[in-house]
């Protein structure tokens, strides 16, 4: 997210910008389609996908329900491995720790592998203000860093850019004209970043999973840049959201099954690295000093909240973005936060405790549930969006006109006689605006609808008015129900009554 874009106040305004950017929409559609097809193929090929999802969910639920135990266990083990563990309750605390380390290391440059937590903390900005060069080494991250933007996708940060835009950015960086050829562009970044890796004082990473029982951290990646960051510089700083824990390596098999398949449709990312402490004394590579900063930054607010605790189960695969019909239309930057798509629409407000500032991100969803269906750990994001809306209303931050409208709705729908009268009145009132069996009036709340669609008028005879005539007519020649059908229905009713009593259904 470039800083200028961020100033657009509402998700609607930001979405308008995106909706009018044909290229962006095409690029996002193209890539999300590939990713979701890849996921579909990979999960089908693997088989029993729902059982794996359920397993993943159970492992995450269990770990989060005992997070105090497992996080503490992780910390003790990581320390015993020689890691300097730090705790940061918010952005300021995390930044202060990073800056303290950087200052004492007299660091001039930091090379980073992809980390959503570091995006959340805006660490690059803090480093640069202190005159320390921060270099993103993931190809996509490097591109958006050159563009002065944030990631618009959790897994594919530069999803919104095409090769011509990328060639332009990299040409400027190289000081020479580079052709819009993927191989050439990637080759340039490889050469350029090789030097950066070898020169960097500090390597900074995120953490996909942290293994409590051995104090190890696990990174998934395809490019090898996370391996570079954890192999070459003398000091390593890892930023980790406090919920990244899993109990054991054995549990990692489940996460390694779910994450790559859900994210990119791969059996496994090209590299999965488990790192247990800094380099051993006799080793000739690996970091001499390793720091891990465990970040809360609003996460603990979801703990103990039955409606939102499952958000902490998220493994940041991006599958919900790839299936989201809204994300596909508006891209990641429209969400206005570090995390975009359905997970961002819930996570951003959830991490931000100020309800009044929730803005309207939670409204940018048709509640279609595609995110839930795609989620490898079955987070009910569509339900959470409704909970967010409800909390905003309950705490008195609801839109005034909407609140009045909903009160009216309840009065109307709270009584069938009132509804019946309203249907009669509606029919009379709509007469002046119905033409050719449609309403195309573009005023008031109807405008949003009628810009893209015609509106059908109310029926001349609503069902409740048709009913008595219909009922009488059908009474004339009644058909007898088939005996087997009748039997089926009776059995269903009996089975229902049995299960209500708590009996075992023998069938």
């Amino acid at each position, binding site marked *: 997210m470039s800083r200028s874009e961020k100033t657009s106040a509402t998700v609607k305004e930001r979405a308008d910008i995106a909706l009018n950017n044909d290229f962006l929409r095409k690029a996002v559609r193209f890539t999300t389609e590939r990713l979701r097809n890849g996921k579909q193929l990979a999960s089908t090929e693997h088989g029993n996908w729902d059982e794996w999802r359920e397993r993943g969910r159970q*492992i995450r639920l269990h770990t989060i329900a005992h997070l*105090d135990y497992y996080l503490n266990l992780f910390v003790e083990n990581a320390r*015993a491995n020689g890691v*300097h563990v730090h705790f940061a309750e918010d952005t300021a605390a995390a930044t202060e720790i990073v800056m303290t380390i950087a200052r004492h290391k007299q660091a001039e440059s930091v090379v980073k592998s992809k980390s959503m937590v570091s995006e959340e903390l805006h660490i690059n900005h803090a480093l640069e203000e202190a005159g320390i060069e921060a270099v993103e080494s993931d190809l996509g991250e490097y591109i958006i860093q050159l563009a002065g933007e944030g990631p618009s996708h959790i897994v594919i940060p530069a999803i919104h850019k095409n090769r011509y835009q990328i060639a332009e950015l990299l040409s400027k960086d190289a000081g020479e004209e580079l052709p819009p050829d993927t191989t050439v562009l990637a080759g340039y970044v490889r050469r350029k970043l090789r030097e950066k890796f070898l020169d960097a004082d500090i390597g900074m990473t995120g953490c996909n999973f942290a293994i409590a*029982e051995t104090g190890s951290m696990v990174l998934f990646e395809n490019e090898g840049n996370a391996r570079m960051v*954890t192999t070459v510089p003398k000091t390593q700083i890892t930023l980790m959201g406090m919920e990244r824990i899993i109990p054991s390596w054995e549990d990692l098999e489940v996460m390694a099954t779910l994450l790559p398949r859900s994210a990119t449709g791969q*059996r496994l990312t090209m590299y999965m690295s488990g790192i247990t402490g800094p380099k051993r004394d*006799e080793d000739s590579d690996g970091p001499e000093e390793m720091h891990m900063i465990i970040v809360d930054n609003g996460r*603990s607010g979801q703990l*103990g909240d039955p409606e939102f605790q499952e958000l902490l189960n998220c493994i940041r695969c991006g599958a919900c973005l790839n299936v989201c019909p809204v994300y596909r239309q508006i891209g990641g930057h429209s969400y206005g936060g570090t995390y975009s798509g359905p997970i961002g629409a819930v996570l951003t407000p959830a991490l931000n405790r100020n309800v009044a500032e929730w803005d309207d991100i939670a409204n940018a969803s048709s509640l279609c549930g595609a995110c839930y269906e795609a989620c490898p750990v079955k987070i009910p994001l569509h339900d959470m969006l409704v909970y967010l809306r409800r909390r905003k209303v309950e705490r008195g931050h609801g839109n005034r006109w909407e609140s009045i409208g909903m009160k009216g709705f309840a009065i109307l729908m709270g009584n069938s006689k009132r509804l019946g009268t309203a249907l009669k009145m509606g029919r009379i009132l709509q007469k002046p605006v119905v033409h050719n069996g449609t309403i195309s009036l573009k005023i008031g709340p109807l405008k949003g609808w009628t810009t893209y669609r015609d509106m059908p008028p109310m029926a001349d005879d609503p069902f409740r008015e048709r009913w008595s005539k219909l009922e009488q007519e059908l009474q004339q020649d009644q058909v007898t129900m088939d005996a087997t059908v009748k039997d089926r229905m009776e059995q269903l009713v009996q089975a229902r009554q049995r299960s209500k009593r708590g009996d075992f259904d023998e069938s």
Partner: protein
Amino acid sequence: MSLDTNRSNDLSKSKATNIANTVNHNATQPPWLAELEQRSRRNQQTFIDHISSRLGRPRATEPPIHPFRGAPSFWKEWSWEEQERVERFTAHFQEVGGHVVSVDNLEAAGEWIAQYAQDLEAREIVRQQLPELEQLRLEQRLPDAHLAVWNEDQQTDWRATAAGADIGIVMAEGAAAYTGTVMVTSSAMQGRSVSLLPTVCIVLLYKKNLHTRLGELLVPLDQRGRQQLPAGVHFISGPSRSSDIENDLTIGVHGPGIIYTLLIG
């Protein structure tokens, strides 16, 4: 080194036998770091207590019963026959752009590597310092190339050596056919850079170490326990790649763009 193979969540025990991987920083720590460490221990109490309080209960200190550990049970019970493991591993590794070559023994592996290096006109080769790799006899086979053996001396900048190498040669500790993955570990003799920085990576894998599922490589890491774990365990499933530009696949972004597994046996 104690061979404590108990699960390392037995903290009291691992503290009592505090050796091996445990690095004692306090002795050599600069004051700023010691101060950060002290602060960390103070914050740990508050931080974790806060989690317990959010969870609405006193701090959990006993290991909870974890009924869902690892893969679903149907998954833990199956495996492929050796022939199928080889076929699947090969297919999966090749599908993502890696190469697999079957050789009878280390001698044949040495021969193949020498031929390959000559074809490539490789000048700089680096390998791990392992007895098996010595048996490749590459020094004799490739008199014109410069053959570096990882961490052979204290003076060399080994990272730079690896970065300048055309070929890096490593031994895999194990592999999983289902995902097409080799597992390479680090130690003083087995630098992480050898499989990472050279242009080409050659991984040697004994057929007997080729398993079916990833879990067959992961579960033993739990069994080894914290103190016996290497600093780096790297699971490699093919060449370095990226799809960050228009979802167009590019090979060899930061790590080796060419990777061979020599399947021995």
